[in-house]
């Protein structure tokens, strides 16, 4: 095997994320059919699989420079052929943001779900507008799209936390034993910290690469924690002592 390929994938983040998706897949296969078809289990699995897939593709682009260069050229980027931002822009910052909004929407009260639905439509509209007008190029940093997505996700998390202190179903349970609580907490931390990371990363790589690397590692660690909680969400029916059954709004 090519040593560069091994090098590209031989990173603690790539190895750990792939291990997590495998664990997630095993638990998902072991789930009873009724839970496999339940959105609260298959949707986190989709996000987990999607995230690990684009991270692997990201690692692959670092190995296959020609592929990366040809995609950049196709998008009109001849200046920076080493960039693989196009991949993260589409997957993490656009599709990922929509998937996370969908995940948050799933845990909200019916009255709050419509806010997230509108946010998703608004996000999609703004992304299309910015792309069609060329205000944010696919192959360069997209600060507006990232900030909009992250803010919407943070608002969604806020709505969830408001729900746990106001909705009777949540008042009857212990939040520390709810997988949705940990999921929202980690999503909130990941997106708020990656905010700073995204804004300062390029600058820090120029002036203090050690700190830049450290900040990127924090971002990677938080993403990994997120993937871990997504795996735990799929595995939660097998851990009844650690996690309580999620309150349901369906009876309302």
């Amino acid at each position, binding site marked *: 095997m090519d040593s560069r390929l091994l090098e590209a994938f031989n990173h603690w983040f790539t190895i750990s994320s792939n291990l997590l998706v495998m664990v997630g897949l095993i638990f998902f296969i072991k789930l009873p059919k009724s839970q496999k078809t339940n959105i609260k289990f298959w949707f986190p699995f989709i996000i987990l699989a999607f995230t690990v897939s684009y991270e692997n593709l990201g690692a692959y682009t670092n190995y296959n420079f020609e592929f990366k260069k040809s995609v950049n050229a196709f998008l009109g980027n001849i200046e920076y052929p080493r960039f693989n931002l196009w991949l993260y822009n589409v997957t993490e910052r656009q599709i990922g943001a929509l998937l996370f909004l969908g995940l948050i929407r799933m845990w909200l009260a019916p009255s709050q779900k419509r806010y997230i639905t509108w946010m998703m439509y608004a996000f999609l509209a703004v992304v299309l507008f910015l792309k069609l007008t060329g205000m944010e190029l696919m192959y360069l940093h997209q600060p507006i799209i990232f900030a909009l997505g992250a803010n919407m996700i943070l608002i969604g998390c806020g709505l969830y936390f408001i729900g746990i*202190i106001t909705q009777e179903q949540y*008042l009857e349970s212990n*939040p520390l034993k709810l997988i949705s609580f940990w999921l929202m907490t980690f999503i909130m*931390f990941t997106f708020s910290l990656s905010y*700073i990371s995204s804004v300062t990363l390029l600058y820090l790589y120029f002036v203090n690469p050690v700190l830049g690397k450290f*900040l990127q590692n924090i971002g990677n660690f938080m993403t990994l924690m997120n993937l871990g909680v997504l795996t735990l969400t799929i595995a939660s029916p097998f851990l009844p002592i650690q996690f309580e059954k999620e309150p349901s709004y369906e009876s309302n």
Partner: protein
Amino acid sequence: MNPTEDQIYVIIFATLFLGGIMSTFVISMVFIHRQRQVQNRQKMDQIKSEHEKTLLNIENEIQQETLTYIGRELHDNIGQLLSLAKLNFGSLKENKREEGKEILSQAIQEVRGLSKQLNLDWVETLSINEFIAQQLERIQNTGFCEASLEADLELLDLPKDHKLVLIRVIQESLNNAIKHASPDKIHVSIYENGSSKHILIKDDGKGFDTSQDSQGSGMFNLRKRMETIGGQFELNSVIGKGTEITLTLPN
């Protein structure tokens, strides 16, 4: 310290600050959740104790009503029967003494019937339909007014607390009609509307102004009692045109 160093410190500080804010937010949410959970439990306990108190009051009221009824029956019915039996037994004629025996048997039957009403076990054996029919028969027998029942369904399998509340509310509604409305006719109907079941108590009496407090307080009590079992109480009354009470049973 140069400007670049300053900016690095700002970045580190901003990261720590944001992390701190997020942590504080999550911890505060957990604390607020705990506080609200305690308040919610207290509220639930209060509702439960109020429900139990209401049921106890209702049981007492039903027993009081039953005792009043028994007292009246002892005086007006059994007392009369026993006096008549005594007169017959005092007669020298054989057929009068036989008649006395029959009257005595009747009095014994009446006493047995009354003794069954002294505890609340009858609530469990009697259906709401039977209870209403019994109440209307009593009203009819007094000759006070005409009373009729029309039932599209039989209200069976109701929990005891629901039954107690319904019995008391129906009893009180009928009593109110007799005491205050002077109707010529009282009509009760039991019907189903979609998935909900209703009891309609209608009289053609004097009616009253529902906005007046003096009339409203008793009705407020009945409404509250229906609400304790998850039901509804609706009142419509027009002066000179009678009163309509609709009880919606809990699903």
